[in-house]
Each structure stands twice: as C-alpha cells, then as structure tokens.
C-alpha cells in the first residue's frame, strides 16, 4: 500500500477515534457532519453503499473495452478513467488511488448497472484550487462529491474552461465512457450495455448467437437487480462478464475500420493481456532502481577499486537492461510500432542504446568509465521519467507518424544516435572532472569518446537525411529548415567540426572532451529544447512544457564547468 493510502487510512482512523472519544453514543461520521447516513460511506471511502459481493472482480479486469478510442483491458481503462475524473493517476504506482485496487473497476461496473446516484455523496472529484475559488467550494478540501459539485456548478454564472472541463468529468462519471459493445456501423463505434434494453436485433459485431446470449444474460441481470435477488445477481454478473470476454474472439485481430489506405485492427487477446501486465507492473521503477544501484556500485569501484563492486554493478546494469528490453518489447508489441513515437518512449529507448553499446563493448574492452557513464545515463533519464509528468499511457498514434517503415528507419536511427551522444557526453563529463582533479585525461576514454561520436554521427546523418526523404515522401519537400531539422543540422555540424578538428589535430584531448560536452548540449537541445523551449514547427507531435528552469540551470552549470576546465588549462600551461 502506498503512502497516500496509508495516510488516508490514518486520517480516517484518527477521525473515528476522536469521534468515539468525544461522542461515544453515536456513529463518528454522522455526529461530525450532522448529515444523513449516506455520508458515512463517503468518509470511509472503501465501502460503497451497495454490497460488492456479486462483483465479478477477477474476471472483469480482463474484459476488453473501448476507452478514448482504443480497445484496452477493463483494468487499464478504468485506471485511466479514474485519472481523468480524479486527476490523480500514475500508471504504475497505486498511490494515486484512494481506494482498493479493484474499486475503480467495481465502481464503473456498478455505475453502468445502477447509475451514479449511490455515489452522490462520495468524495471522488479532485478540484484544482483556482476552480475551487470559482465554484466557491470549501478551500481546505481537495476532493468533492457529485452532490457538492452539482450544487456549486448550478450557482456559477460564468463558467470558465476549467469548470466546463469539470462538467465533462461529471458527465464521464455519470455515464462512464468505457464502452463494451462493438457496434456494427462504419465508424466501428462502441456502445454501452444499456443499448441491449431497447434493441432486439443484433446491432453488434458479435455473432448472432453470442449477441443473443449476452442480451438474455443482461436482461436477466437487470431483472434480478430489480428484485434485489443478490445471489442470483452474482451468478448472472459472472456469466455476463464471461460471455462478453468469450465473445471478444468474434472481433479479435480483425479490422475495425477499413479505409482505402489503411486498416485499424482490434488487438488480440494476447496483446490485451500484455497491456494489463504493463500497466500493473513496476517496470520503470525496477529499471530506475537497478541503474541507480549499478551507478552506485561503479562509483564505489572507483573509490575502493574492488572488482567485486564492478561485477555486481555489471549484473545490475544487465538486469536493468533486460527489464528495459522487456518494457520496450511490450510497448512495441502492444502498439504494433517501434517504441519511439513520443518523448517518454525516446527517453526509454536512448539509454537502452547507450547500455546496449556498453554491454557489447565490455566484451572486448576493460574501460571502466563506459559502464559508469551508461548506468548514469539510465539513472538520470529514468529519474526524469519518474519525476516528470509525461503521459505514460498507451495511446493511438497520430496520422502523420503512422508509417512504421519510416518511423523505424528515421526515428530509431536518430534516437539511437542520441543515446550514443549521451554516452560520449557523459564520458566527456567524467573525463573533465578527472581533468579538473588530476590534470590529465585518460587516453582510452578519449578513444571511446571518439568512437562513440563516430558511430553516433554515422547514425545521425543518415537518420536525418532519411528523415528528409520521409518528409519528401509525405509532406512534399526534402528540407525546409524547420526548427527540428535546423537543430538536427546544428547537431551534425557540431560533431562534424569536432571530428574534423580532432582528426586534423586542431584540437587535442581536452578539446575533444570539451567539444563532446558542447555537442552533448546541442543534442539535448535538439531533443528536448526544440520541443519544450522553442515549441515551433512541424514536429509538433512531441511538443510539451516543463523543466525549462532545470534546463537553463543545467546549461549554466555546463558553461561554468567548461570555463573551469579552460582556467585549469591556462594554469597548467603557466606552471
């Protein structure tokens, strides 16, 4: 159980305790609020007012449903739905959920059967502070009940965009847009179960036989609910969910939408299974922790020079790498495309390349800075993923990017080169630190930096040019000095200068190291800065915001570092 949950339990416990002490004669919550019995449920968030004994909890999480334009397992859809309503969500942790893990699925299932009324007094809606002000809600609370919000929204005269968003969240709560019936129409839309009440003929993509069974079960379930026959209800619930899961094979892996140029397929049951695993696992955290430990061990090795640290460090590095490979593979298999279509995915893929190269190199080289650099990259980037608010959910791809052929060639090459530039950059940093400390730069490391730069450039330039070819094939021009293109050019130019200058001995080791650090910064800007700082141009699908301050602090630090190295060099010369 996570911290938030523990805190809530603690709070409830304390409230109850105080209530029992001060008002021993009556129920705690009732006396505290002087409100009807229903409030009791809202305070003890875990127990919704209707008995959950007939809820087909284990089964239903596997049920394929449609949410936000994608077919996903019910467990995943319900988590995303809860985030949209509650504004608290982390795909992997459960600390955002103030309920039991099964609560959301249970809630949605019941709302679709009973309607939202029983939860009118449950504090489920997170409201941001400015909106709270607009709505005139209690400042000290962050979550509000449907009842509170309905009252508050009625009284608002000029609803702003946030209030409208809240209204949409309320609608989404009242009729969860998690849809279960694939409709047999052109747009491949899905519909709620309640459609079964009106139509007799098969209007779904399911076979007639399945449809009739589902309909019979649903109607029977409704009837037994009306009769409040809970034992029977439970059996029927189980049977209905079973039947729905069973019927999915009618559309599994088949095209939902067919246009002249492409098709949209329903994911297979296996892919849905994988998606469920991906969302319920802690892969990102495991990778982060193993790289962190590896980094620590490699550092210890440098301090204590015990080979044991190195070996354990390597095993953690490889362990992290394997998990990371699994994560990338999962994402690729589920989404049916290379895992490089958004910022998060590139943040996972780039260090993967860096670690991959390190592991391969480790077979024929004994350089110890390389693994340190690689684990450091993993540690830092996964740290960024963990702390930033990047969208981690699996979503549909934009039509511009929907070309696996080009996405694979262009983006895989480019992001791979980023990984290697990061490697050379981090090695350069380590070398520069050692230069500042000892006044010398390791020849072997320099060789690795050069090699790394070479391979990276050999990936970046073809990658960029192939990007041009892609642009020519899908937008109609090869090169247009779009900011992303410009900065790809600047990256190439920077490394070309370093390579030429180093090759013709215009710069030596220190020059190479400083050059690689500058190159590292240029690449970072191409990668992050163009999308997050410039925010202009045609590569708009990667745009975002956040982290600008950190970035500028980092750049300042880098400048200071390079200046320090230069001062050191002058001093050494003078001596």
């Amino acid at each position, binding site marked *: 159980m996570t911290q938030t949950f523990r805190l809530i339990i603690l709070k409830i416990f304390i409230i109850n305790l105080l209530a029992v002490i001060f008002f021993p004669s009556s129920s705690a919550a009732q006396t505290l609020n002087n409100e009807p019995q229903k409030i009791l449920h809202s305070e003890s968030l875990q127990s919704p007012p209707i008995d959950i004994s007939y809820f087909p909890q284990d089964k239903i999480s596997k049920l394929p449903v*449609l949410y*936000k*334009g*994608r*077919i996903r397992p019910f467990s995943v859809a319900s988590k995303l739905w809860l985030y949209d309503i509650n504004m608290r969500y982390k795909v992997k942790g459960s600390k955002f959920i103030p309920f039991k893990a099964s609560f959301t699925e249970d809630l949605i299932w019941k709302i679709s059967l009973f309607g939202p009324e029983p939860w009118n007094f449950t504090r489920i809606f997170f409201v941001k502070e400015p909106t709270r002000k607009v709505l005139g809600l209690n400042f000290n609370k962050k979550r509000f009940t449907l009842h509170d919000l309905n009252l508050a929204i009625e009284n608002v005269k000029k609803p702003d965009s946030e209030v409208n968003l809240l209204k949409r969240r309320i609608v989404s709560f009242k009729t969860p*847009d998690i849809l279960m019936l694939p409709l047999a129409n052109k*747009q*491949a*839309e*899905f519909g709620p179960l309640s459609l079964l009440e009106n139509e007799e003929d098969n209007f779904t993509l399911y076979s007639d036989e399945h449809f009739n069974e589902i309909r019979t079960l649903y109607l029977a379930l409704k009837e037994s609910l009306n009769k409040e026959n809970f034992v029977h209800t439970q059996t029927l619930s189980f049977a209905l969910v079973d039947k729905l899961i069973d019927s999915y094979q009618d559309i599994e892996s088949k095209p*939902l*939408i067919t*246009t*002249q*140029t*492409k098709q*949209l397929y329903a994911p297979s049951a296996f892919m849905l299974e994988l998606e469920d695993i991906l969302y319920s696992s802690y892969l990102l955290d495991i990778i982060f922790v193993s790289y962190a430990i590896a980094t620590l061990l490699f550092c210890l090795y440098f301090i204590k020079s015990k080979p044991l640290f190195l070996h354990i460090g390597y095993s953690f590095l490889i362990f992290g790498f394997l998990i990371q490979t699994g994560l990338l593979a999962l994402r690729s298999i589920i989404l049916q495309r290379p895992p490089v279509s958004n910022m998060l995915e590139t943040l996972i893929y780039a260090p993967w390349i860096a670690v991959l190269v390190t592991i391969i190199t480790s077979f024929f080289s004994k350089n110890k800075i390389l693994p340190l650099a690689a684990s450091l990259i993993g540690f830092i980037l996964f740290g960024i993923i963990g702390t930033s608010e990047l969208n981690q959910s699996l*979503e*549909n791809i*934009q*039509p*511009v990017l*929907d*070309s696996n052929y080009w996405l694979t060639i262009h983006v895989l090459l480019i992001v791979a080169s980023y990984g290697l530039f990061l490697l050379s950059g981090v090695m350069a940093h380590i070398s520069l630190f050692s230069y500042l400390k000892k006044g010398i730069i390791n020849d072997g490391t320099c060789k690795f930096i050069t090699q790394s730069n*070479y*391979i990276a*450039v*050999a990936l970046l*330039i*073809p990658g960029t*040019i192939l990007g041009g070819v892609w642009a*020519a*094939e*899908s*937008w*109609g*021009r*090869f*090169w*247009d*000095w*779009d*900011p992303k293109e*410009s*900065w790809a*050019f*600047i990256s190439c*130019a920077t490394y*070309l*200068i370093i390579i*030429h200058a180093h*090759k*013709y*001995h*215009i710069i030596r080791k220190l020059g190479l190291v400083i050059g690689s650090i500058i190159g590292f910064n240029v690449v970072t800007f191409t990668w992050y800065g*163009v999308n997050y700082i*410039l*925010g*202009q*141009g045609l590569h708009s699908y990667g745009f975002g915001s956040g982290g600008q301050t950190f970035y500028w602090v980092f750049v300042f630090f880098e400048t200071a570092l390079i200046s320090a190295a230069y001062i050191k060099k002058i001093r050494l010369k003078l001596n």
Partner: protein
Amino acid sequence: MKKIYHFLGGVYFAIILIFLTAIYTAVGTFIESKTSSHLQAAYFTYENPFFRSLLVLFFVNILIASLRRYPFKPRHIPFLMTHLGLLMIISGCIVKSLLGYQGAMVLKEGSGSDTIILPNTHAIKIENKQKSFITPLPFFGNKIKTPFKDLLISITNFEPHSEEALMVFENEKIITQQDPYEFAHNYFIANASIIKENMSYPLSKVLTKSSFTKEEQTFNIYIDKYYEIQSFGNQNICVSMKPSKLILESSDKKIYCFFFNKNGFIFHYIFENLPEIYILDNGYGGYFSQISLPKNFDTWSIEYLKEKEQHLIQKELEYLFSDVDKLPKPMQIFYNSSINNTIEPSIYLKNYLVEWKQKGTFLFNKDDWLIKSLDFSTLSSSDLSGLFWTASFFEKLDHEQIDLKDVDLDFVQETLLRNKTSDEQELEIANKLFMLGKQHENLLIGAKKDNESLFCAFLKINGFNKKFNYNEFCQQSLENEDLFYSYSKVTNSITSKASEQKWEENKPMIELELRDGEKKENIKLSYQIHNKGLKWPIFNGKYLISFEPLTKKIPNKFRLREAKKILFPNSSDVFCYESDVLIDDKEETISMNQIVETKEGCRFYMSSFQENGMMNAKVAIFTVNRDPAKKILTYPGAFFLSLGIILLFWVKNKNKKRFHDTDL
C-alpha cells in the same frame, strides 16, 4: 593562388563554414520561436543571400577538398563517397529550385483544377470578358504591362499588411467628428442620383433644398414611382438612391445601419455587434450585400413609415377628390357632406380610413359629427331601401355576431356555407342584399338607420373595402416577415496596418493607378492568398482585377471527389485523413504518408483538411510538387553520403595511421 586554392579546400575553411552555418541556423530557429513565423526566420536566415552564399562556399570547399586528393586511391573511396554525396544533395536543392516547382491546390469537395498556387508570390490578375492575364509584380519600377489595349497600370503603394472590410463601412474616425445622422444625410445626398432618360444626375444638384433634422428625422424628398417631379415638366423621372444602405461604427462601438427606401426615407437600426452580411456576386457588375434584420427592426421607422404612407394616401385622395363627378356614389355623399361642413375631404377620409384599418371594421365612431351630418336624401328611394337592407345585415353581422347560416336567405346560405367572410364574399352579399332591398322598397317604410351604418354599407356596396385596402399602402413585409433584406452594392475599404509578428498572417495591400485611354481610376487591392477572394470591377465593369499569388499549370487534371476524416472509434482523435481523387480520370486515393505520383513526375500530397460547417463546404489543401533532381541527385546523394559515413568509420579503424600521415 595555390594558397587560396588550398585554403578554400582546407579543413580550417570547412570548420569556419560549418560553424557559421550552424550559428546562423540556430539564430533562425530562435527567431522562428520568438515570432512564430517560419517566413520571417527564412527571410533573415535560410533564404538570406548571405546564407545562400555560405551554401555555395560549402559546395566549393567540398569540391576542392575532394579534388585535392587527386589522383584518387582506393583508400579515398569513403571520403570521396561522403563528400560526393553532399555535393549531390546540395546540387539537388539548386536544381529543384531552378527547374522544379512546389505549390498548393485548394479544392472544395467535388471541384477540380489543373493549376497550382505558388505560395509567397505576388501578382496582379486582370480579366475582361475575352481573356485573363496574370503578371508578377515588377522587380524594378512601378509600371505593369498588360496585353489589353489602352490599359496602363502603375503601382503607387505597397503595404506588407492590411485589413479589408467588404461593405459600405466607414471607420470610426469619420463618425467621431460628426453626428452619425448628419453624416448619413450628407452621404445620401451626395450619392443619391436621379435617373432621367437613362442618364443619371446627382441628386444634390437637382434638389437644392432638403432638410434633415434629428428631431423630425425626415428627409424631405418623397419622390417615388407614383410621383413626378413637377419641375421637370411632363417627363417621368424616377429617383434611385445609391447606396441604399450605410453601415457605420460609432465611437461607442455601436453599429448604425441606415437604410434608404424607395420613397427616400431614411430609417436606421442600431446593432450591438456587426450583423451578418452576405455578399452576392454579380460578375462584372460588382458585388452586392444582403443584410438580415430582426423582425420589427425599428419600431419608429415603421410608425414613421405609416405616417408617410398616410401622407401618400391623403395625396391620392386629394387627387381623387379633384374630379367630383367621377367619384363613386358614397364618396360623392362624403364629399358633399364634408364640403357642407367646410372640411378638407381628403384629410377627413384619410383619418377615417386609418381608423378603419386600426379597428378592422368600418362601424365606429357613431357620434362622429361628420358621419351624423351625412345626407342620404340625394339617393333614390330604391337605392335607400337596398342600403337599408345591407346596413341591417352588416349591423347584425358585426354587432350581434349572428351566424350567417341562420339567415334565412338562400343566396346567403349558398355563398357563405363554404366559409365565413372573405372580402369578396362580403361584397357579394352586400350587392345581393342591395338588389334585394331595391326590389322590396315597401318593406322599409318608416324604418330608420344610423347614417354611419348606411355609409359603411354604401362603401361596401361600392367595393370600397377592396379599393382602399389600407394594407396595400403600408409595407406589410416590415411587420409580417421575420427578416428584412436590404441589398446594396459592396465596396471594399482597405486600410494598411502594422505588420504582424507572424508574417504568415500578413495580408499585403497594393494601391494601383489605372488608366484606360482618357479615364483614370485608383484602386486598393488586398492580397487573396488562396485565389478565392473577390475580383473587383474597374472602369464600370470593363475589367476585373485582383491581387493574388502566381499560379502554374500542371500537366495533370486533378479533381477532389471526396475528402474524409476518419476518427478512432468513439473518439475525436484522427485515425486517417483520406481523399478520393481523380487524376486524369484515374481514380486514386491520397492520404497522409501515402502520396500519388503521376507519370509526368507531379506528386500530390494531402496537407490540410477543413471540415464542412454552416457556411462552407469541405475543403482540402493539396501540396503539389515536381522535383526533377530528386531521383538523379538528392536520393542517390543521400545514399552515397550515408554509405560513405559508415565506410569512413570502418576504413578509419583499419588505416588509422596512414590516414594521419597522408592527409595532414
């Protein structure tokens, strides 16, 4: 010389070039970020002659660097391959910009074209009914040559950004100095004209006297098709007012609409926001606007209009009463009575008719002295008897609400069984009753009736309720229809503005001086980015002129059959943009990441899509280009460069030492 040659092909020069280009490019991206304008960044950097010359120097540098390695040895292959690849890419760009083209095609669903718009080009297009002509703005000087005889064009001004208003719209400045009413008055006087024998005379010259005061809000030219202007003798002259509508924005941001009706009355309406205005295209005749106004858009103007119409009725009655012998019988009685009482008959009758209109019946005002003084003695006794009958009937009908079916008269039954009282049926009844009454004179001896009832019956018998239908005099449309349409000629008002930060949003403006033989005109034109704007008539519709981008004919005929936006299930996210098109009568489908290339080398890409809405059809924008160098230079160059870099890396490891020795 050799030194220069070595420097130009040397690594120092290469590094300097790369460095300068990189810095220049970086500055460009920051300009683009700051201004959100790729065009502006391109102007200062990528398309700047300095940047272009850097690229040329690059070319020279790489070329010389390669040539310096002559005679080539096998170990030079990666180096040469890489640099040859670069040379090919750069020359590919140059060839494309010289021989290829790239443009846009903006198509509504169902339309087709074989010309493309070349973006960021400026041209003047002139057409008459025989031919059309397009020419880019001249590089030097301000004269534009045209193939049209006698037509001379010279550019007097060019502004990078402007705002165009398509209506009779004067901006605030004029209004703040003057009273809007007074302005409207002067404006109309200045623009109204009288058409006489197909010649047009300005009204301001014809009418020396006119009054328009705010209190009365009248405009004393009531001339319309019913009236002649006496001072012009016997010729028929009608007055047409141009424009008949004026929209003004006052300093308090209210929109005043002034209308000029056929009678020369001004009435107005005040809008809080600018109303919707539809533009109708009249070809060489220019454009007309149509504006819709709410029901009862201005009550005072209706009241005012009524008064004016009453005035017209009175005038008509005056005319009617001028020849007493020709008057209908009831009017003669009326006339005689009013003369006996020394009242102007036309005024009295008018008031009577207005009340008639308001009350919906002519049985009113029994105590009216004029009605009381009516003298029916001039009528024959049989006529009087018929009148009695009719009056009795209508009295009953109006006052006691008798059901016509109860009247024991066959013909009444016959007439009225179908339905009750249309005007014609009433007249028919009245006439038949009258005839009946005439025959049964003896039945009515001693009976007495109100004068007023008798008079009304008399009017009815003579069909007056038809002839003097008040509604015909008042503009029914104002009261009964939801919308009032006013049509007037559209002019454009273009004002220059400061350039936007995002240059893509700029709408340049050009001022031209046009000469056609002796005649001279000045016109302001605003840039029509998609060639879909309005073409303005010049020299009374002899030519149409517009300011738009250059176009280019492509070898293929292209037609957009259907543009589709396909969404993911239950979502607003787009799964696929797709267009079904016909290229030279061959069916094709174009979508993002799937383009169509024709035999002639034209490539079609779907670049943008606009959904249909209330006011527009589905529109798709296609990028069309032709790049003759792509397959022979750019792509092979890219291939060589990529392969060369990989080889360079591989060979470098092998021959590391030798490289260092020889290439320094």
